[in-house]
């Protein structure tokens, strides 16, 4: 037996001993806790960020070839630009095109024209936040006019999709899912509905939250 092997065995033994000791200490602690503390420990403090059902798909190459919708037998699709080439310097996002489009425009990575014939035309930006109170325990929705008017015209949403009056627009997440109200853009082209906290961003006051909380029996 060489010195190296001996050393390894000794180190592993020490680690085993330490971990065993640590476990016993932990067990003793657990036994001394009262019933109330146990319940408190089991209560979820924040919304659980982890869910093993939400699989993250990591796709690094974004190419036209083999994307499932382009016909590569003709010559046309081969001439098109690949998304990964266009997205090279863009600020990253976790879903959708994996590009943060608002940030890209704010930082000047993209400079989309606001008029077909006038390259210097600037958008009429309105800075007004609308807060929508939401049923249930989700945070309230804050709608920022600023980011929307940077790329859209008033007539795109008002009055066909949203009546410009407080309380006049009844809507639900189900309507968004089938492509109505916010779902006209979000979930199709604008950032997807899976980014809950991008819209549901204003925390409710504690009193309101207390009502919706599930009480421990």
């Amino acid at each position, binding site marked *: 037996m060489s010195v190296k092997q001996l050393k390894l065995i000794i180190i592993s033994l020490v680690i085993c001993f330490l971990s065993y000791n640590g476990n016993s200490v932990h067990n003793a602690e657990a036994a001394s806790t009262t019933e109330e503390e146990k319940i408190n420990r089991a209560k979820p403090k924040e919304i659980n960020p982890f869910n093993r059902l939400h699989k993250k798909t990591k796709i690094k190459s974004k190419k036209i070839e083999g994307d499932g919708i382009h*016909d590569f037998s003709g010559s046309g699709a081969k001439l098109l630009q690949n998304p990964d080439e266009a997205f090279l310097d863009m600020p990253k996002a976790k879903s959708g*095109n994996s590009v943060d489009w608002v940030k890209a425009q704010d930082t000047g990575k993209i400079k989309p024209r606001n008029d077909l014939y006038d390259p210097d035309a600037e958008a009429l930006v309105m800075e007004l936040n609308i807060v929508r109170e939401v049923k249930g325990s989700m945070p309230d929705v804050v709608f920022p006019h600023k980011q929307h008017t940077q790329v859209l015209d008033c007539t795109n949403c008002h009055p066909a999709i949203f009546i410009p009056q407080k309380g006049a627009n009844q809507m639900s997440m189900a309507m968004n899912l089938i492509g109505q109200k916010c779902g006209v853009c979000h979930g199709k082209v604008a950032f997807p509905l899976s980014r809950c906290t991008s819209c549901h961003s204003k925390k409710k006051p504690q009193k309101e939250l207390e009502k919706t909380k599930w009480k421990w029996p």
Partner: protein
Amino acid sequence: MRIKLFIYLYLVVTILLVSIESRAEYGDVVINNYSEASGMNPVIFPHWFHRIRFTCKVCHADLGFEFKAGANKIKMIDIMEGQFCGECHNGELAWGTENCDLCHSGNKKMGTHIERSSLQKLLDLKIDERKRQAE
């Protein structure tokens, strides 16, 4: 030796998997109102490419495109007359209508829809369910 071989194999396989896997870009619109019936491949409109160059307002307010896939009922004659896509795709600002297969580049047998939209995901679930029930 054997462990090293396995590690190399594992690395090669993962690299291959990552590099091969590719899917349609979010917001790609497949338009097949009249294309396939007229013997052409469906049109694929990439939103990502156009939003780098223009704001939403240019097409959806000024050019009058509806916010719904297939709702515009675009025909080639409209484009040649300078409506819809024809406002830019006239050979001056963007490629002209003689480059058929640059726009008509989609696989056949696809209906009009938006790729990876929440509605499309719901419909796919429904189709899968029906298939399972049929089996």
